[in-house]
């Protein structure tokens, strides 16, 4: 994601690093290229001008003249300017003290509101909340039906009605109270910002719902008009934050910068894939790092931590140490990884990881592996050693694969078990040395709901924090702050 912006910037920086010292003429040259990179990333012209002017002013300020490494200088300035344009601090979602916390979604047609609503519901579920989806899109044929299907997939109830949208919203609210749901997500019809009638309608929905948060759903592929549209929506319903969708395309995502700058509301969530789990909170500082080519390890760790159901993960880890890790655990973990979203979206956050991951092939392989394991008896899963030729043939038949596939899986599993065993012995289950200072502050896991003093993700997911730090040459605990 944001690749185009990133690649544009890295080119500019490599040019800058070849220069010995920053001169005003150099700065202008670099800025001209930066302007072009930003415009091609669909950042609004006015925002680009402002950005370039600020960077120029910073670059020319007296103290920086003395420094020696111009590339570092510019990187630092651009980084801090990017963060300030992207909104500085991360958006902090606060739940109302008097539930339900109400969220209203608004945006143009086709920006992805309905899908975003379902993904958001799924996200709230993971946070341990009990969301209710309200479908107030009575404009587009079958929009409510779409929400119902997605709600069912996410395991979240959906309320709708054939009344006018403001009424549906109000009824949805009382339905949430009746059912004891603590978060309400209201999906609305897509509308053009210049359609006065529909804009009046959404402000009525806003008045009926009195949302705690109004999210503007924006397509990452939007062009210059995104800023203008956001401004008009802001006038109608007072936007609090943005959900940026379709970031799994090769979109440059410049709209995020424009909207933030023009309307002043931050990007709260980004959606990076077609699955319900492909929604994450947006962190401007990490994005600024990503634009400059540093990856987003923190986001990955957070997602890993959230998806893996703690109790199960711990149990599996214990079995791993005891050497009783079975194919059932293997299957469970594979399913957990699937929940985290596509592999390419995970890998895009690790700097230096391969750019092109064939999601389709990986998915297919995982599906095959799942089928093979599911075709085994409990005993076979527990003790794959007993699988002889006749059993192998039965399993292959049952899973629609070949006996070679079955053998391959068993071999891979045995190797993995061996490797993981030696890994846990050498690295230890816990991260040695200092304890991560990350606050787990009352995060409620879907299953357990208790607080954990330690972070088992290192061992469980195969991401060993200490090792990762060593490889990347960075201090993760510093990143966290």
């Amino acid at each position, binding site marked *: 994601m944001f690749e185009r912006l990133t690649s544009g910037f890295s080119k500019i920086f490599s040019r800058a690093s070849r220069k010995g010292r920053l001169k005003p003429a150099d700065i202008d040259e670099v800025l001209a290229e930066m302007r*072009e990179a930003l*415009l*091609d*990333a*669909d950042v*609004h*012209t006015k925002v680009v001008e402002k950005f370039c002017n600020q960077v120029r002013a910073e670059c020319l300020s007296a103290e920086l003249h003395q420094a020696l490494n111009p590339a570092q200088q510019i990187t630092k300035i651009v980084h801090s300017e990017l963060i300030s344009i992207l909104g500085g601090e991360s958006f902090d979602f606060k739940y109302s003290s008097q539930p339900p916390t109400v969220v209203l979604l608004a945006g*143009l*047609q*086709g*920006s*992805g509101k309905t899908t975003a609503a379902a993904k958001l519901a799924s996200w709230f579920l993971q946070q341990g909340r009990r969301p209710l989806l309200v479908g107030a899109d009575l*404009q*587009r*044929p*079958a*929009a409510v*039906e*779409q929400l*119902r*299907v*997605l709600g069912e*997939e996410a395991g979240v109830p959906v309320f709708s009605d054939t009344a006018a949208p403001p009424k549906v919203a109000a009824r949805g609210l009382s339905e949430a109270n009746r059912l004891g749901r603590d978060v309400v997500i209201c999906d609305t019809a897509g509308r*053009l*910002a*210049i359609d006065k009638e529909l804009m009046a309608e959404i402000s009525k929905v806003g008045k009926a719902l009195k949302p705690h948060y109004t999210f503007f759903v924006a*397509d990452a*592929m*939007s*062009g*210059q*008009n*995104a800023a*203008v*549209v956001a401004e008009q929506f802001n006038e109608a319903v007072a936007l609090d934050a943005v959900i940026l969708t*379709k970031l*799994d*395309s*090769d*979109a*440059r995502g*410049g*709209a995020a910068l424009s909207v933030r700058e023009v309307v002043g509301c931050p990007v709260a969530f980004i959606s990076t894939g077609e699955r319900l789990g492909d929604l994450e909170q947006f962190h401007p500082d990490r994005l600024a790092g990503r634009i400059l080519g540093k990856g987003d390890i923190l986001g990955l760790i957070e997602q890993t931590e959230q998806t893996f159901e703690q109790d199960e993960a711990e149990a599996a880890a214990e079995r791993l140490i005891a050497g009783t890790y079975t194919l059932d655990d293997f299957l469970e973990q594979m399913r957990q990884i699937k929940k985290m979203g596509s592999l390419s979206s995970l890998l895009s956050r690790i700097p230096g990881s391969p750019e092109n991951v*064939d*999601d*389709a092939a990986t998915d297919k392989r995982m599906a095959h592996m799942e089928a093979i394991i599911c075709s085994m008896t409990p005993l076979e899963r527990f003790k794959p050693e007993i699988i002889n030729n006749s059993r192998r043939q039965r399993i292959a038949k049952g899973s629609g694969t070949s006996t070679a596939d079955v053998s391959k899986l068993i071999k891979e599993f045995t190797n993995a078990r061996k490797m993981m065993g030696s890994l846990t012995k050498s690295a230890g289950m816990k991260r040695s040395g200092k304890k991560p200072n990350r606050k787990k502050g009352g995060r409620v896991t879907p299953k357990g709901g208790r607080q954990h003093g330690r972070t088992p993700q290192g061992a469980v997911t195969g991401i060993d924090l200490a090792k990762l730090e060593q490889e990347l040459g960075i201090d993760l605990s510093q990143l966290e702050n």
Partner: protein
Amino acid sequence: MALFKRRAKSQTAEDFASDVAAPEDSSFNALDNSELEVHAPELNLPTLTWEEAEEILLQADLGVATTNKIVQLAQDNYSGEVSERLQQALLAELTQPMSPEENAAVGDADIADAGVGDFAEVAGVATEASPAIWLVVGVNGVGKTTTVAKLAKAQKDQGHRVVLAAADTFRAAAIDQLQTWADRLDVSLVKGAPKGDPAAVVFDAVEHAKARGADLVIADTAGRMHTKDNLMEELQKILRVANKSQGTVSEILLVIDSTTGQNGISQARVFNESVRPTGIVLTKLDGSSKGGVVVSVQQELQLAVKFIGVGEGLSDLRQFDPAAFATTLLCGA
């Protein structure tokens, strides 16, 4: 439809709003102007400096390279007010790659026949045994399903017997959405199971059309990110299967949302490589977006805009008029 092209080229800002001459040949008249009149609000070109002009073009999503090119062209080749020169340059860019002379020079007769706003003839393509097939493709959320409904209405009004194929089996409730439109239009809809094989749906729709004596199948496909190889392969499969059916694929329409920025070029490139669309439908032009990215697309891929969508109603489909488009684009936000 050479007539339309010539007229468009000679148009100026003052007279572009006049109504479009009806095409002469009309065994099939997809562009019947009583139904699809040109979307042409009465606008006067603003007085601009070159700097303002550049900003307007950038804000209309033409992108840096195309903006520079247009400005250069306007400065070199035309005279008069800045905005008039730009309009002429834009018009030249929008129509020129489609000119019969140039295409004749390249020696590509097929392209020469398919000019701006031109459309494959259902009557010409379809026979008793073989209905025409139109595929509607594009990324997520651009308005494919609505466009299918609008196309169906226009064709039905022309006296064609239309069958819709709900080949978007992926998005939740997409089939229901198209069913609603089909009911309103009173045309038959062939659908498969949700998550089923979309190619099979198209194939079945052709069979159905043949059995019922319908001469046109319009297929709605699932939105797919052009970056997802597997989904692009699925689309190729739909095309392959459609070609093997008893129908004839005569149009592949790529739907582009006019709010799209520079990513539109990337979309068009990949779809072009994958299924070679025969034209573009530019949707949501009733908003404040200008859809300027199609200028770059047309330049790079010689892929012409055939229709524009200007609203959510069934009749809100218009023939693309380059002159009107250029003027609206220059009139700013």
